């Protein structure tokens, strides 16, 4: 249920972006969901629906899952995050703080914890679309 906290961030940021761009009405909010964090899409979607402001009352929330990907800084190996390969403890830690990947996951080639999360880290606001005037 900490998905609620993430949803609050998305809604507040979408409101700010809409204001910055002079949108009177938001029609679509695209959210990247990095799969490393293993966010529950239904809970997040439910929270977004509950939290939405009048400006976004008719908006469509699009959740775009992005696979977690790593690249080792030592040996250059690249690999994808497979949720089934980490145990429950690790999975939960990474769910709250994706950087905990460096505590629980090692490079599949050389064993190093020194890798980049090149894609799919956490929740990110990709775009906010809307209407400038009540068209």
């Amino acid at each position: 249920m900490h998905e609620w906290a993430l949803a609050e961030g998305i809604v507040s940021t979408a409101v700010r972006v809409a204001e910055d761009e002079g949108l009177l009405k938001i029609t679509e909010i695209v959210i990247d969901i990095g799969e490393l964090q293993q966010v529950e899409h239904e809970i997040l979607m439910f929270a977004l629906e509950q939290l939405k402001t009048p400006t976004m009352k008719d908006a469509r929330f699009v959740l775009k899952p992005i696979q977690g990907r790593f690249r080792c800084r030592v040996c250059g190996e690249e690999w994808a995050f497979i949720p089934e390969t980490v145990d429950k403890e690790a999975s939960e830690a990474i769910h709250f703080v994706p950087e905990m990947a460096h505590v629980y996951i090692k490079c599949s080639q050389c064993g190093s914890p020194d890798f980049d999360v090149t894609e799919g880290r956490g929740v990110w606001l990709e775009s906010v679309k809307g209407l400038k005037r009540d068209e």
Partner: protein
Amino acid sequence: MSDPRIEVIERRLEKVENIIAVSSGKGGVGKSVVASTLSLELSSRGYSVGLFDLDFTSPSTHVILGIQDVFPDEEYGIIPPLVKGLRYMSIIFYALDRPAPLRGSEISDAIIEVLAITRWEELDYLIIDMPPGMGDATLDVIRLIPRIKFLMVSTPSKVAYETVRKQLTLLRGLDFPVIGVIENMVMHSLRLRSQVEEDGAEYLGSINYDPVLEEALGDIERLKKTAMYAELTKIVHHI
């Protein structure tokens, strides 16, 4: 593309009256001991207090306070557990006792994530135990929590104070409030007062090296009976 976490950080801290970062350019000067005992003492005085261990690669306050077997509640975010009278938050809830080899950008990302999901209740004081130096954690609290105040800790050693002086210079350049400097682990004479004042900061007081502090680590009741704690108590009204 926008980071949806930054926007809510301020709101997560809006019920907190005072936010104090216990900081030093140097490691091993007693930041974690001061942050821990300061939190305990403020709480004893009836204030509601939170302690946030922001030293993600070398967290220590759980060792000092003997915190174990607690975990945050999840309720529209993360609720720091109430331990020994304090609302407590640390990366050890997630890293457990394993090494956390994080680069600066990852520490920064982890700090932002934790700040964005942790719901601090009404608090008179939130004490933040900082890692040493002027790296990502320090730059991020300056950037993300503009109303934070710095409480600096140094030992009498010139090696330690040299790094504290640099941090004072940095904070003054940014017009950032510094509560003052505590001189910790004094063994002979006090050396820093005049130098601290020359550098334009308040000298808050000194704490002697306490040879039995180590024995008391991990046990709050014993900690509160140490000479170190008694001396800290005398400094608290300046804070």
